[in-house]
Structures are given as structure tokens and as C-alpha cells.
């Protein structure tokens, strides 16, 4: 079955719809070497990852990020500096780092949001965050739409947002719900229960169930979103993860000796809480989830879904053009 391009010289010829014919291979050709080729290329170019942490002060955000990436990502040492004032408004601080492991280079950007939820009046305190996220999409869109564009567009879009829930044991706060409602549509939100060492196992399970229920009732889809499951395999895997979210985590950057091994943990009069011990807290699950299995997927959902939604809205709203430039947005930010 062959399809012929009609007249030559037609302007431009319609590309044909290919009909797949399954051809049986006799003997090895080497098509599967493309995996190696691709792997080599990606190792050369390296990866970008931008993670945002949002939560009230004192919930252990910086410590958790340090524990996740096993290094001093945030320069906050264990004692909280009294000289550091709580900022009057929500600030957005993005700091870039380069991680290299096993020949793989990753440019990690941690976006901190000091001041979130810390004021007396917290109305609309998610707005600067939403604006920042949209600004990154805008930057990417501008680059993509250029005539002569760069080989690799710098990706500053937020791939993942860790939202820290206070371990009250009761339910979500209105601020939590408002934030997640607004932002679950523009970015992948992963809720975590911070400082989980204040809850017993039963309290933890109950709290998690309540949180999940509340999120469902309010129509908040956290990552991994049900609607983006591609096939049955994905669905079963993600269902399992969704059942155990939000992860109750404990962070620490101090090491202690336990059973002859040096482990990261928190030392209390009644024992040492091991961060990477699954019976103590779910940090290892979070780390594996975010870094070892779903990092690429986080990036892809951001690029293929959130970014595309932003782009479609943008191009539709103005018949193909932006009413404002990035410069004026920056001006606005300083006026807040």
C-alpha cells in the first residue's frame, strides 16, 4: 500500500498520513542503540530543575531542601538567626546550584518564599507567587516565539511546588486551601506535612485522610494529577502514591550514630528520629518520588500541560499578543 504525493510543484504539498505497516525483523539491526545515543546526549546537555518551597516560617522548609539534596542548599544553619526579620511581604528568592552525580549534571534552582502566611493580614499572599510562576512562563514563551531562537531555551519555569502543611492534627487551614486552590491549576503542587515528628502514627494516618478528603472536596488536584495518567500502568502506580500523600516528613542535616551507622536524624531525649527510616517518617518516599522516579515527569507535565495552557490562554486572550511586557511586571512587584 503506497500513497503518492499528487502533482509535484504544488505549494506546499500536503504531508501524507502515514500508514504503519508492521514489518518483521529478521536479524539484529541495532535500532535499540538509540537508547544509548539518547542517554549520552542528555548526559552531555545536563538537566534543569526548579523547585519552589512554600509555607509559613518555621516549618522546616530550608532544612528539608538541604536533606533532599544532601547538601547545604540553603544557607540557613541550624540556629535561626534572630537578626533575620520576617519580611513584610512575600518575597521570591531563587538561588541556583549545580549538582553533579554519576556524570549527570543538574542545575537545581530552589525558589524560597519567605513571608508567606506570616503577616497578620494574609489576604492574597499567594498572588506574588502566582505572578512569579506566570512570569517564568512568559519568559519562556517570549524566547520560544523569537525568530532566531537559542538552541536551548533557559528553563526557569517552576517544575514543582512543595507546600508545607502545619502538623496541627486537625485539618487544613483556610490559607492552605486558598493557596492550593489558586495554584494547583498553574503548577504541580506536592503537599507535605512538615515536622511530622509531632504526631503519632494514628494521628498521622487520620490527619492524612482528613487532608486528602478536604482537598478532594475543594476540587484541588495535587501532583500526580488523576487526569494526566496516561495508561493503566501509570494509573496504578500513581494511585498508590496518591493514597499515601501528603507525605509526613522530617528533615535534618545532622548525623548521628545509630546501630553503628551514621544516619541523618533528630536527637531527642526519648530517642533518635531517623530521617531515612520509613518507619519513622516518609522522607525517603518523598525523595524517591520527587528525584528518583518522577522528576522527569514533573518537568514534562509542566511543559506539556501547564505551560501549554498558559500559552493558549495568552495567545487567545489578546488575539496573539501580550498587553504587557516583562519589564512592567517587575515594576509592579517592587510596588507591592
Amino acid at each position, binding site marked *: 500500500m503506497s500513497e503518492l504525493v499528487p502533482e*509535484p510543484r504544488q505549494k506546499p504539498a500536503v504531508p501524507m498520513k502515514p500508514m504503519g*505497516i508492521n514489518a518483521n525483523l*529478521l536479524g539484529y539491526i541495532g535500532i535499540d542503540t538509540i537508547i544509548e545515543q539518547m542517554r549520552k546526549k542528555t548526559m552531555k546537555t545536563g538537566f534543569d530543575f526548579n523547585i519552589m518551597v512554600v509555607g509559613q516560617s518555621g516549618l522546616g522548609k530550608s532544612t528539608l531542601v538541604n536533606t533532599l539534596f544532601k547538601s547545604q542548599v540553603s544557607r540557613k544553619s541550624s540556629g535561626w538567626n534572630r537578626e533575620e526579620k520576617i519580611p513584610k511581604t512575600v518575597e521570591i528568592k531563587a538561588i541556583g*546550584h*549545580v549538582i553533579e552525580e554519576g556524570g549527570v549534571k543538574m542545575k537545581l534552582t530552589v525558589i524560597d518564599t519567605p513571608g508567606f502566611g506570616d503577616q497578620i493580614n494574609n489576604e492574597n499572599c499567594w498572588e506574588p507567587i502566582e505572578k512569579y510562576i506566570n512570569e517564568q512562563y512568559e519568559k519562556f514563551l517570549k524566547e520560544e516565539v523569537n525568530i532566531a531562537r537559542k538552541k536551548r531555551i533557559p528553563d526557569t519555569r517552576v517544575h514543582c511546588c512543595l507546600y508545607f502543611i502545619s502538623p496541627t492534627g486537625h485539618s487544613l487551614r483556610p490559607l492552605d486551601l486558598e493557596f492550593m486552590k489558586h495554584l494547583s491549576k498553574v503548577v504541580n503542587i506536592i503537599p507535605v506535612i512538615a515536622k511530622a515528628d509531632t504526631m503519632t502514627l494514628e494521628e498521622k494516618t487520620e490527619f492524612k485522610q482528613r487532608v486528602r478528603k478536604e482537598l478532594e472536596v475543594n476540587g484541588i488536584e495535587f501532583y500526580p494529577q488523576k487526569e494526566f495518567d496516561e495508561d493503566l500502568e501509570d494509573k496504578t502506580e500513581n494511585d498508590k502514591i496518591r493514597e499515601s500523600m501528603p507525605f509526613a516528613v522530617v528533615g535534618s542535616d545532622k548525623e548521628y550514630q545509630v546501630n553503628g551507622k551514621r544516619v541523618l536524624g533528630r536527637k531527642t531525649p526519648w530517642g533518635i528520629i531517623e530521617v531515612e527510616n520509613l518507619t519513622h517518617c516518609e522522607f525517603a518516599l518523598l525523595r524517591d518520588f520527587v*528525584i528518583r522516579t518522577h522528576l522527569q515527569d514533573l518537568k514534562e507535565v509542566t*511543559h506539556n500541560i501547564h505551560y501549554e495552557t498558559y500559552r493558549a490562554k495568552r*495567545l487567545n486572550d489578546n488575539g496573539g*499578543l501580550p498587553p504587557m511586557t516583562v519589564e512592567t511586571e517587575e515594576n509592579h512587584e517592587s510596588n507591592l
Partner: protein
Amino acid sequence: CRSCDQQNDGCRSLSLSGHVGVDSLPDQLVNKSIKQGFCFNILCIGETGIGKSTLIDSLFNTSFDDPVSTHFQPNVRLRAQTYELQESNVRLKLTIVSTVGFGDQIKKEESYQPIVDYIDAQFEAYLQEELKIKRSLHSYHDTRIHVCLYFISPTGHSLKSLDLLTMKSLDSKVNIIPIIGKADSVSKTELQKFKVKLMSELVSNGVQIYQFPTDDETVSEINAIMNGHLPFAVVGSTEEVKVENKMVKARQYPWGIVQVEDENHCDFVKLREMLICTNMEDLREQTHARHYELYRRCRLEEMGFRDTGPENKPVSLQEAYEAKRHEFYIEMQRKEEEMRQVFVQRVKEKEAILKEAEQEIQAKFEHLKRLHQEERLKLEKNRRVLEDEMAMFIKKKAAAELLQTQALVSTPVNFKKDKDRKK
């Protein structure tokens, strides 16, 4: 410990105190790609009968069942077929595009144009998808040509002018790998001279063929060596011949057997190595990052978009869009106004005509009425006259009757008297 190296745009380099898991990233990426499947599109250009289909069959170890074409095609056409191949867990959507009737015509000036048009059409389709508002790029079936195998006739002398012309028009649009088809008709010594001649002709005419990349240390050496063996002299065969207790792909001649996979006999193995095992990904990347970007740039500039507006200030594509849209809108308004004027004019004219017609009819009506009136008066007069006459006639008749009855009354007496007299 903290290292404070300033590299990569001022980012700190972190030293890890344990295993994080970042090294699993390439695997994650690769697994996603495997799930999606790969696409590879090959374009074969060469004269009819030079062995394109046979070579593809040999390369992919399968028979793709292409019908043999005649030499009497009126113009050059392209035939595309897509196949789904699978090897271990890798699924490949392979599209082979072949020229039909290339080099067969008497007048060959137009021969390369359909090929250029086809390649441009694939770029155009991708560009259109990319420019859409609601797009689905990551599930888009990529039909852009990743590599072009150009088959050179094994004359042993030099390139034909058609070859030069075609390659020159394609070298900025696609990765070209020149190969010598049916290379078993050229002897080894002739082959060496032939290759040198071909390469020097290509260089002196400024044709940019695809160079195997030499920037990755693992493959740079072998790629560099292979670059020196271009153009590859290939022989294709799908038939198997028994040689030393093994069945190998070969061509059997009375004077010997040409084994396709023997590196001493031809460069088939080298081609397969380079095309598939080593550089398939690079070919795809070059197509996207270089050839497609060039096409896109030219096309957008053609459509009137610029990155820098007047006074050389950077203008985004969207601003240019708006300017164009505004222009278009004004033009539309003008046209609308024009049309409205024309319409109003026509309506006026029609109205005038209708009015005239109406007046005419009115006049006729009046005229007819008058006539009718006159007729009636005449008739009235006649009727009166007639009535008068009738009245007179009746009177006369009445008078006559009276006289008659009077006469009748008197005569019968006389008659009786007469009767009596007679007696």
C-alpha cells in the same frame, strides 16, 4: 563542606554528602522516550534502478515490498511509506521516502523541485503545529526528513550535473549522506580514485554534506575515520547465498560472490553502523536544531515578522502580529466601507428605476380610466337614446292596439248585419 566555585552563570556547585539519585535522570528521560516511541524518516534519492529499495531492505533486514517502478514517469514523484519496527523494547516508526522517476526525464531541470517541495512541506506542517494556539507537540508524528541518502551512479568518473544541482539545493535543508549505489560494478582501485574525485567535487562546489559528529569522545574517533570513507560504496541484497556453511546476504556472479556484510567487499556495514547504531539521535537533533530552525527563521521573515523593528529595537513576534493584525483590520474596514458605498449606490439606482416604472404605470392607469369613462358616457347616451326610442315604440304600440280593439268592436256588428242581410 561547601565548595564555592562560581561557574554556570554564578551558580554554586554543591558537593553531596550522600546519594541523592540525580544520576537516575537520564534513565527517567530514556524510559519516557521508550514509552512514546521513536520516529525516523529517511529520504532516498537516486535514479530508477540504482538499488534504493534493495538497500533499504538490506539495512533493515526485512522486505518492505516496494513495487518496481518503470522508467517512463513523466515527472519526478515521491513515495512515502511508514513502518513500525520493534527491537527489544524500542519501538521505531520508520518512514522511507523514495523518489520515483528521478533522472529519467529528457529535461531534468525540474527534477529536484518536487524533492525540495516535499521537505519544505514537512517543515511547514511542523511549523504550523508549533504556531497553533492549542497544540499537541509532544504527541505530534514528526514527518521531517532526518537523513537523505543520495545515490550516486557508479560510473567511476565523477558526479553528474543533476547530482550537483540536486545536492546543492538540498544541503541546507537536510542531512545528506552520499553513497555510491551498485558499487560492485566498480573495481577496488577505481573505487578509491572515484571516491576522492567525488569528495573533491563536492567540496569545490560548496556542497555541505553531513559530517559525523566528533565532539563526543566515545564516538569521535570512529566517526572521524568514517568521515574519511565517504561516500560509502554499498551493495544491497535480500537474497541469501551459502558461503562456508553460513547463509549470508550476497549477490552471486559466475566469477564470485559479493557479500554484502563483508567490509572488504563494500561499505554496507559502515553505513549501517553510522546511520543507525551511532548517529541516529544526532541526525534527528541536527534536523530539528539546525535545518528546521533555519527553515522557520526564513519562513517567519518571509511572512513579515522581524525580531528587531524600526530603530533596531527588539520587537517580539507578538508585537509584529499585532501590527499586522491592525493593518489587516484597517484594510478590512476600508473594504467594508467601499462595499457599503457600492451597495448604497446600487440601491439608489434601483429605487430610481422602480419609481419611474411606477410613474409610467400610473399614467397608463389614468389614461385607461379616462378612456373607460368616455366609453361609459357614450354608452349612457346610447342607452338613453335607446330608451327613448323604446318608450316611443311602446306608446305607438299602445296607440295601435287601442285603435285595433276599437276597430274590432265595431266591425263584428256590421258582420252580423251582413249575415242577416244575406239571409
